[in-house]
């Protein structure tokens, strides 16, 4: 006890204390639920056994059930389309905007700030907003497409099995682009301006400067942005809840939404947990790439 008091007074060992606090927090609020999630993926958990901490062992039954489910293949495919589509287009638009605002014209900072406003909106609000924009009868999107002559009849984005996934995808691209833009803008701002001047004198045109200076100097940032994009997209739930609820007929169901449906609609927590375990594996793999790319950054 005196040792602890002394450590507080002298500050010796205080660093160790801080690390212990942080680690305990991680263990209690992230580690234990994670482990418990893995455990219940091997157990039979229903409404009746929900109240108890320990449930009957189910072996690999839950995993088998998920893989045999006729919905599994479609959910996997829709998750891939949604994730890659979101990340690729958020990144592309985000990078284009970051480059655009990097020109520093008058008002650039203000408009950039406005973009951030979109990002701080809660997902459910964004979902409601896009419900309205995508609405079949009086939606702005249909009106735009019609006046451009791209479609003749209104598209019922949310209730059509062909388009429901894209309805959420479009909303998510809009929602995630500002985040990509800000991170990439920070990366751009970190490149010293004299490198561009040196390259210009060395004979590089704008395209060559982008290709030989900007892109390689941004490698770590780009890696981080893509990895974070994948992780955030795999966490996206609110937009599905607000726009399509995974429907119609599962046409916009992605893994994270399916997991929620199994657990909280069908009260089959074992199978819901199986999906989260599989997703954790994917996220761990992506995080590994993220960590490696930030390491490359410190080495530069």
């Amino acid at each position: 006890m005196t040792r602890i008091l002394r450590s507080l007074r002298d500050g010796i060992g205080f660093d160790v204390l801080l690390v212990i606090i942080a680690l305990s927090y991680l263990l209690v609020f992230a580690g234990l639920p994670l482990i418990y999630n893995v455990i219940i993926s091997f157990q039979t958990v229903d409404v009746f056994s929900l109240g108890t901490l320990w449930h009957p062992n189910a072996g690999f039954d839950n995993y088998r059930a998920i893989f045999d489910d006729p919905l599994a293949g479609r959910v996997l495919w829709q998750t891939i389309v949604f994730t890659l589509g979101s990340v690729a287009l958020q990144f592309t638009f985000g990078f284009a905007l970051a480059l655009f605002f990097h020109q520093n014209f008058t008002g650039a900072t203000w408009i950039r700030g406005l973009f951030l406003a979109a990002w701080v909106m809660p997902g459910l609000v964004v979902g409601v907003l896009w419900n309205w924009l995508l609405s079949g009868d009086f939606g702005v999107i249909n009106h735009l497409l019609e006046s451009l002559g791209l479609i003749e009849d209104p598209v019922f984005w949310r209730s059509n099995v062909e388009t429901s996934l894209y309805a959420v995808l479009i909303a998510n691209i809009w929602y995630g682009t500002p985040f990509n833009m800000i991170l990439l803008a920070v990366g751009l701002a970190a490149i010293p301006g004299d490198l561009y001047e040196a390259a210009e004198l060395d004979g590089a045109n704008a395209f060559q400067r982008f290709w030989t200076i900007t892109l390689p100097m941004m490698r770590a940032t780009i890696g981080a942005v893509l990895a974070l994009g994948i992780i955030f997209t795999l966490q996206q739930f609110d937009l599905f809840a607000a726009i399509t609820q995974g429907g119609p007929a599962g046409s916009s169901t992605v893994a994270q939404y399916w997991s929620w449906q199994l657990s909280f609609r069908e009260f089959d927590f074992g199978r819901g947990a199986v999906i989260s375990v599989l997703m954790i594996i994917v996220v761990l793999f992506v995080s590994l790439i993220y960590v490696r790319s930030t390491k490359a950054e410190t080495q530069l």
Partner: protein
Amino acid sequence: MTYQIELDRVEKHYGRFHALKEISLAIPKGQFVALVGPSGCGKSTLLRSIAGLERITSGTLRIAGEPVDDLPPRKRDLAMVFQSYALYPHMSVRDNLTYALRLKGVSRAERARRAEEVAAVIGLETLLDRRPRELSGGQRQRVAMGRAIIRQPRAFLFDEPLSNLDAALRVRMRKEVRALHDRIGATSVYVTHDQIEAMTMADHVVVLQAGRIEQQGTPVALYDRPANRFVAGFIGSPAMNFIPGVIAGDGRAVRLALPGNPMLETTIAGTPGLQVEVGIRPEHMVLGSPDAPDALPLVVNAVETTGAASYLFTEGEPELIVTTEGTATIRAGDTIGVSVDPARVHLFEPETGASLRSASL
């Protein structure tokens, strides 16, 4: 005669700020020109305007006789060495050196050959595969130089390339840069705020102040015949002493505003009774006996010595500096006698600062 770089009444405005005023400068092929002046006088702006990194507001700029006002930097065929070196951090030394050649489509074998060749010239043979962050300041500076010379450009532009090095290395690099210039027969424009660097390296020195050329000429001309008080005070170290005075009745001597109002002979004919600023370099004030007939009697207030030379600071206003060789035996409080060769005395118009010598010549 066509000059390698020629500026004709070049002006540069940043919004309402007038950064360059009526700059006219003609640099023949092979010349080493130094742009020197206090910080913020527009040296970098002038250099960057030549490079094309800044657009000039008016006037003309020619490189090898061809007007380049509308050419972007990459088409001007000039190489620049930045104060920050601006090495590409994600490339090896070899790739830094050959970047321009790669853009030009020079073959891989030829690039490798030229990289080796240049590395030998600048003494970096063993470092070709390193990244810039693995090099010392001096080595980075050499890479920056190598990146410029490998291109064989029409001219080299240097923006204070040595200012991030320690004093000893700076003195050595001064000679190396100049030797390199001579060896490859280059044309160089070298920006520095250090007048000693400008005087020791350049064939032609351009003194800038507040965006204007105060004077240009050979180092010796600037030292011996400064056109105005600013140049007189800027060139030379320690700086020239200035003493207010009045031209005496015979027009060949000045009465100094020092205790006792001593007379000082000059070789400049002036209007008797005219108020002037008298300029005398510390190294032209010769120590003698205080009792000699023509000596200025001065009281020493402080003494600084470097071993090779000593600087005597005098009491009263204005404070004067007298340079003597070796270690002085004189102490603070001593009275000294100083005599000055009349041909070494400069006179300046107090209002405009213009030298009276040019008027009398």
